[in-house]
């Protein structure tokens, strides 16, 4: 049932996200081609109004992709589960776990896709013919910088794996913060939206108050894995603390949807 739920969740979100992503990349391409052509052919000339507008439009499209990702993440959970559509969704023979995982996995996918699209659009916009020759230099910088404080076991591949895992966990953590706040806020009879915002702020405060766990985890990690690279260790600690916090938020969201569902 999870795959079926995800199929419809992807359909519901893709109809908004895919056109925006295509628009963002296409505008970046058109802008780059026109600007490159202009600069390449006549270096002294300043870009025309049309070309400036294209540049602004690309920036707006990139902003729209980012905004749509956040708005969709909130709106899909709020209206599809806690709004009128919830009457259908919670009448399906699926569990609350499956509902949460569906929303979570699809939202994380779009967050990662958005990051990729923004990176891609920026690379296209900034391309000046020397980008590909710069890659070895970037790699060299990464190796020299991140191995400067290392002792053993470092490779850029391992570092990137940790980095992507940390981004993945961070994205999931952000989604669950919003889901837990919405679920708690909508379990009340009145002022559901206001209470959701209040719960989100409370979660933020608690998150920062419990941030004290991170140094403890870092110490523990140092004790357990003393020769590990410091940057990898930092990422590892942030992944573990992120997973712990996400687990707490998941339990809150699930408990509220299962035992305090309130579709008045």
């Amino acid at each position, binding site marked *: *049932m999870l795959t*079926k739920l995800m*199929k*419809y969740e992807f359909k*519901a979100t893709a*109809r908004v996200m895919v056109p925006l992503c295509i628009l963002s990349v296409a505008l970046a391409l058109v802008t780059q081609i026109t600007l490159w052509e202009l600069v390449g052919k006549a270096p002294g000339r300043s870009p025309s109004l049309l070309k400036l507008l294209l540049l602004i439009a690309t920036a707006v499209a990139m902003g729209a992709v980012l905004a749509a990702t956040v708005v969709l993440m909130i709106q899909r959970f709020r209206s*599809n589960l806690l709004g*009128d*559509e*919830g*009457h*259908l969704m*919670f*009448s*399906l*023979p*699926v*569990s609350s776990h499956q509902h949460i995982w569906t929303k979570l996995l699809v939202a994380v996918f779009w967050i990662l896709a958005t990051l990729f699209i923004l990176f891609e659009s920026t690379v296209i916009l900034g391309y000046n013919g020397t980008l590909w020759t710069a890659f070895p230099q970037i790699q060299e910088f990464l190796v020299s910088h991140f191995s400067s404080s290392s002792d053993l076991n470092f490779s850029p591949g391992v570092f990137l794996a940790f980095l992507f895992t940390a981004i993945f966990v961070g994205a999931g953590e952000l989604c669950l913060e919003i889901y837990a706040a919405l679920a708690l806020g909508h379990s009340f*009879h*009145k002022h559901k939206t206001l209470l959701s915002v209040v719960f989100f702020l409370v979660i933020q405060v608690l998150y920062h108050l419990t941030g004290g766990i991170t140094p403890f985890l870092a110490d523990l990690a140092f004790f357990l894995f003393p020769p590990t690279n410091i940057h990898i260790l930092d990422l590892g600690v942030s992944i573990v603390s992120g997973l712990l916090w996400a687990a707490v938020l998941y339990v809150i969201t699930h408990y509220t949807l299962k*035992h*305090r*569902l*309130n*579709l*008045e």
Partner: protein
Amino acid sequence: MSTLLTCKGLVKSYDKVHALDGLDLTIQPGRIVGLLGPNGSGKSTLMKLANGLLTPTAGEVLIDGIVPGQETHSLVSYLPDRPSLPQWMTIDQLQDFFADFFPDFDRARCREMLDKLELPSHRKLKDLSKGSREKVQLVLTMSRQARLYLLDEPMGGVDPAARDFILETILKNYDPEATVVIATHLIADVEKVLDEVIFLDRGKAALHTSVDDLRAETGKSVDALFREVFQC
């Protein structure tokens, strides 16, 4: 005979107001039951509790002896009192959606009803009129071969001609072993199909009897008795 829907001391409160106030009720299989009552009597609340969309403040509601949840959703076909279908989907996509999640969804039956109501399958729900959207929702609900149908105001927004079709649809499509519970204000329209009536008054069952007994004992129609009992 086993009961399909059971309420034991069921209470649901919003702040300090009791929408349901210690409701005791049993409904047997194979019945068409009218759940009747004025606004705020707790009809929709009972439907939602029976479908697990609300949690009881006290007491319990059971579907075939099971607390409402994932397991009972396979047994119950629920029509909410509001539009709950995703508006961006076409009618065809909605049929796929129901077929994906409900093994008892009868696509041929659904198509037949849609054709009779002249509802175009390729159209998106958001492009249809309010009445047509309600018809689609009802058709999808009645196209399942469920054991219990919970229909909350199934004819609220449709024209009188369509109401007859809807009642025909309910009568024609439901399994004799299944139970249909219809919550409505339009008593005169549904009276002819009902086996039993439940009058809900301020969260309690003021009356629960068979329609034949009611007519024999009072000499009145359900509609006339309802107007008398709930006279303002």
